[in-house]
């Protein structure tokens, strides 16, 4: 039996390749993701290991919040500078000095702010003790004077800076000019994964980062031979409350853990798309196996006649799937590794240099790739294998005609139950919200619809095919007949595309709704004519707090509101707190109060919350809630008012005075300007006045809306690109089915050719059948996707998705694209059918 399976596989290499391709692509995606994220993770772990390898202890503020929130690293309060002096006196301490860090961004010779991708612009204090410093001088000298800066080699190389050059640096305060005293590398890397580095001597760093008299932390070296645990105890005993001493190893571990979390999010997101691809691949495998089992009825029956048991037949189909899955997974694994290597090279090409870390290929990657690849293939083949078992031995006889005992009633029942179960899970998952329930629900729904699709396949193929039959004459008519001939096969083939398009349409509807909601929410949130944000990618950067005062003095500007944001602890959660200037509030921000007071409450140092928060947290005006700030510790806040959800502000709002007194030297995230009209003279004045700050993006409200939408579109574009793979796999499934159909109908095609059908007509017959298949799948997919997208969007109403938009023209575009893709998928099978030799085709039975 093993031989039958192996020889059978070898005899159909093309079918094998096409079927396996679906799995190859999915597994490539999975293994590539795993290898890439493992490698990145390892790189950063190595990096932090390197940074802290010589640091014996670090003295720092204790974590301000018990819960670290979603931002990774713990928030810590700076410590007084005087601690360093105390610590240096402790026996066994050889060296102890402070480190500070903050925002510092170089300005390129052309006046633009330098940034790479989304990587941060790091400002550091330069530790002259080379044993402690993570920065290695590759040229020049350490910064000694208040006018010195050292620059990372990556930036220096890209923008042609050399030692002795003068460079402007954007800081928390006004921009300043420094002299480059040296160029540094980060270990062996030119920069830190794309982040730029500007390092100053310690006093300068403290000054430019607004940390005079304070350190972020103190790094400690012990004298050789000192007993480290004793030293640590001695240091701990000397520290005031709220300050702790930990080993360098601890810090390195913490930092690599934070990075690990960030990467696990990335890998989870990518893996979700990989699994979607494999899921669609599963549909095409199921379809191929169903068809080949049908085509091999005679052979299977023959095996039964010469003594094969049911179990042997079942196992033969499963074994075929297993071998296919194994081969495809191994190839996918190899390609995945290659893709990860390629991606890393691509990152390097983009200027995101990584330390020469080793390439990580974990055993886990192999296990996951093989398990998932083989698992999907084998599971998809179970139902066809069961059908193979039902082939009676008598089917081997020449005059046997299978009585179509379609188990359609059972299929409809199971399909309906699965579909309803899926819908129920989806509803439950969306209302919770529980992502897993949504995922399982979607899978169940898709399989259920796939099982029910054969019911509508014949009538729908008939309707879709009618205009084609009219337009293309006999080839159109035959193509239509062929697509109606086996509703089950038509539906199965279209199912994979259905899933792909359902997902794409979901995103389209969801995205359009989100986009519309963004526009209306900006209009409902901001009054100001101009909005100033960071030019860093996504506008998520910070900029100098001197911008507000500069802008306030510009001609034409009537009022300015500075927006800050920072994390605070309220009832065990760690949300963002937004602050706005209380004066002129109504001229720049639209605050629709539902109850309580607005401006007055902010001025009085009270907290405003939006209605969603009020409802979910059961808070009302006058409630007093315990809160905690990193800098100032525990406190209470009185709820001064409740406002309608506002896209700019978020859930929690305080006045700027209050905010500044509880946060250490915060940087604005946005500055809102109200002007006398929006004349070009005003615009010119603003642009000119803020020219020293090239890291700003100055936008009108309309421009801001547009850029928000563009960001959204970019994100959606990425999602479309990731889903495209699933659509490609679905198309491979169509190619495969058509090839099998052409093979199956060799005799019939020969007959048609014999009675005078031209090659061209044969080609268009196959192509039109493919178009009908694709459009059928697309229609169902788009309908399902529209429903799903609407459901997703409406479930996020509380989160600000207030408008539901169905982008009809875009969905129609998808439909047309699907038809064209169907046409493309048919080109190879169509050529093959047209090439058939008439005589041999007729002789084939």
């Amino acid at each position: 039996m093993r031989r039958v399976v192996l020889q059978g596989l070898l005899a159909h290499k093309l079918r094998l390749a096409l079927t396996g391709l679906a799995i190859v692509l999915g597994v490539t995606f999975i293994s590539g993701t795993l290898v890439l994220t493992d490698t990145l993770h390892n790189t950063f772990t190595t990096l932090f290991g390197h940074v802290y390898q010589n640091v014996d202890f670090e003295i720092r503020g204790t974590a301000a919040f018990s819960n670290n929130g979603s931002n990774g690293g713990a928030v810590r309060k700076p410590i007084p500078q005087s601690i360093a002096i105390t610590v240096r006196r402790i026996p066994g301490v050889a060296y102890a000095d402070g480190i500070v860090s903050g925002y510092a961004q170089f300005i390129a010779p052309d006046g633009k702010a330098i940034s790479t991708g989304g990587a941060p612009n790091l400002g550091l204090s330069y530790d002259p003790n080379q044993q402690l410093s993570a920065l290695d001088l590759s040229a020049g000298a350490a910064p000694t004077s208040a006018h010195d800066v050292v620059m990372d080699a990556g930036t220096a190389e890209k923008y042609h800076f050399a030692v002795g050059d003068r460079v402007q640096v954007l800081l928390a305060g006004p921009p300043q000019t420094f002299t480059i005293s040296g160029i540094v590398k980060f270990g062996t890397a030119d920069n830190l994964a794309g982040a730029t580095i500007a390092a100053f001597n310690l006093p300068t760093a403290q000054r430019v980062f607004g940390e005079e008299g304070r350190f972020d932390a103190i790094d400690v070296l012990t004298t050789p031979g000192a007993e480290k645990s004793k030293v640590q105890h001695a240091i701990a005993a000397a520290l005031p409350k709220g300050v702790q001493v930990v080993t360098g190893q601890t810090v390195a571990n913490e930092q690599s853990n934070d990075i690990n979390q960030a990467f696990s999010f990335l890998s989870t997101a990518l893996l979700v798309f990989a699994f979607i691809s494999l899921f669609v691949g599963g549909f095409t495998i199921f379809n191929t196996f169903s068809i080949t089992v049908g085509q091999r009825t005679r052979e299977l029956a023959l095996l039964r006649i010469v003594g094969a048991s049911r179990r042997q037949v079942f196992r033969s189909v499963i074994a075929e799937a297993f071998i296919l899955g194994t081969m495809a997974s191994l190839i996918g694994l190899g390609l995945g590794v290659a893709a990860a290597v390629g991606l890393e090279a691509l990152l390097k090409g983009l200027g995101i240099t990584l330390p020469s870390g080793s390439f990580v290929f974990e055993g886990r990657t192999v296990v996951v790739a093989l398990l998932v690849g083989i698992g999907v293939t084998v599971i998809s083949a179970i139902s066809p294998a069961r059908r193979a078992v039902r082939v009676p031995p008598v089917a081997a006889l020449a005059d046997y005609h299978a009585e179509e005992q379609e188990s359609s009633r059972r299929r409809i029942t199971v399909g309906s139950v699965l579909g309803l179960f899926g819908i129920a899970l989806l509803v439950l998952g969306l209302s919770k919200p529980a992502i897993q329930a949504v995922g399982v629900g979607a899978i169940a729904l898709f399989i259920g619809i796939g099982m029910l699709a054969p019911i509508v396949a014949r009538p729908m193929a008939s309707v879709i095919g009618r205009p084609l039959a009219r337009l293309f004459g006999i080839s159109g008519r035959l193509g239509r007949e062929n697509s109606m001939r086996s509703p089950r096969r038509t539906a199965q083939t279209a199912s994979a595309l259905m899933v792909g398009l359902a997902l794409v349409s979901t995103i389209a509807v969801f995205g359009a709704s989100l986009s519309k909601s963004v526009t209306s929410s900006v209009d409902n949130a901001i009054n100001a004519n101009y909005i100033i944000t960071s030019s860093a990618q996504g506008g998520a950067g910070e900029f100098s707090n001197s911008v507000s005062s500069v802008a306030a003095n510009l001609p034409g500007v009537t009022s300015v509101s500075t927006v800050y944001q920072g994390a605070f602890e309220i009832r065990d959660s760690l949300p963002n707190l937004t602050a706005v200037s209380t004066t002129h509030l109504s001229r720049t921000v639209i605050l629709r109060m539902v109850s309580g007071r607005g401006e007055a409450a902010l001025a009085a140092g009270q907290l405003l919350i939006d209605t969603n928060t009020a409802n979910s947290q059961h808070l009302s005006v006058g409630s007093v809630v315990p809160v905690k700030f990193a800098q100032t510790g525990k406190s209470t806040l009185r709820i001064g008012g409740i406002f309608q959800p506002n896209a700019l502000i978020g859930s929690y709002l305080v006045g700027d005075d209050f905010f500044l007194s509880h946060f250490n030297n915060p940087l604005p995230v946005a500055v809102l300007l109200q002007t006398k009209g929006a004349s070009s003279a005003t615009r010119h004045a603003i642009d000119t006045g803020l020219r020293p700050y090239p890291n700003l993006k100055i936008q009108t409200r309309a421009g801001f809306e547009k850029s928000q939408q563009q960001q959204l579109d970019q994100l959606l574009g990425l999602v479309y690109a990731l889903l495209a793979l699933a659509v490609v796999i679905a198309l491979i499934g169509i190619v495969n089915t058509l090839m099998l159909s052409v093979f199956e109908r060799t005799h019939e095609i020969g007959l048609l050719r014999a009675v005078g059908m031209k090659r061209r007509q044969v080609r268009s017959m196959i192509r039109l059948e493919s178009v009908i298949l694709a459009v059928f799948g697309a229609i169902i997919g788009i309908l399902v996707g529209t429903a799903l997208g609407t459901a997703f969007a409406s479930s996020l109403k509380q989160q600000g998705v207030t408008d539901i938009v169905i982008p009809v023209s875009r969905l129609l575009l998808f439909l047309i694209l699907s038809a064209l893709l169907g046409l493309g998928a048919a080109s190879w099978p169509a050529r093959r059918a047209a090439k058939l030799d008439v005589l041999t085709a007729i002789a084939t039975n």
Partner: protein
Amino acid sequence: MTIIEHEASDPASPSTVPAARAIDLVKTYGKGDAMVHALDGINVEFDSGRFTAVMGPSGSGKSTLMHCMAGLDTPTSGRTFVGEREIGRLDDAGLTQMRRDQVGFVFQSFNLVPTLNARENITLPCDLAKTKVDPEWFDYLVAQLGIGNRLSHRPSEMSGGQQQRVACARALIARPDLIFADEPTGNLDSNSSAEMLEFLRRSVTDMRQSIVMVTHDARGAAYADRVVFLADGSVVGELLSPTADSILERMKQLGG
């Protein structure tokens, strides 16, 4: 040697248990007015160690009879036996076991697995049953059938006669008690047909193989020890030690 051993271990003679028999066998298709009696209460026995031909015009039910007796089709009523085993009492596993060690099949269309070569096709029943192929028996069959130089060929690389001889070897490889042959020469030219029938005849004469062959060719049926005639689903007569002429004569009488 092998042959003698085979005889010794299987001393069945025409007087003992028949190789297969049917009792009151009925097979109907369709319902009501459209009901067709393919088999109308047939009682027949096929002797062990003998070559029996089943003849009859198209639609006489001869193929249906064979399918029911071989367990390929389920009769509407009545009982069938292969040896002492009652087929109606067997489940799928039992039927599979019976196909493995009691019966072999030869069909009109040669029915080889296209992806396997001749050798692999011949040994397939043993491979499926996970029993060892008797190499001497294999060599004997291959030599008798004259396919020794074709063993590594795929079915598509062989002539119809060669394919049918491979199918024959496959039917015999597991030494079944009974061979069912369904129009085995239907797709062969007269030379190949004669060789095939001579081989079947020899295997009965030399090795006491039991064979039931459905055919409508009088010359083919003349190789048999006995011919059973079927018409409209009933046994309508039989001939012992037939010749082609006597068979044709009888066919004429039956209006075939």
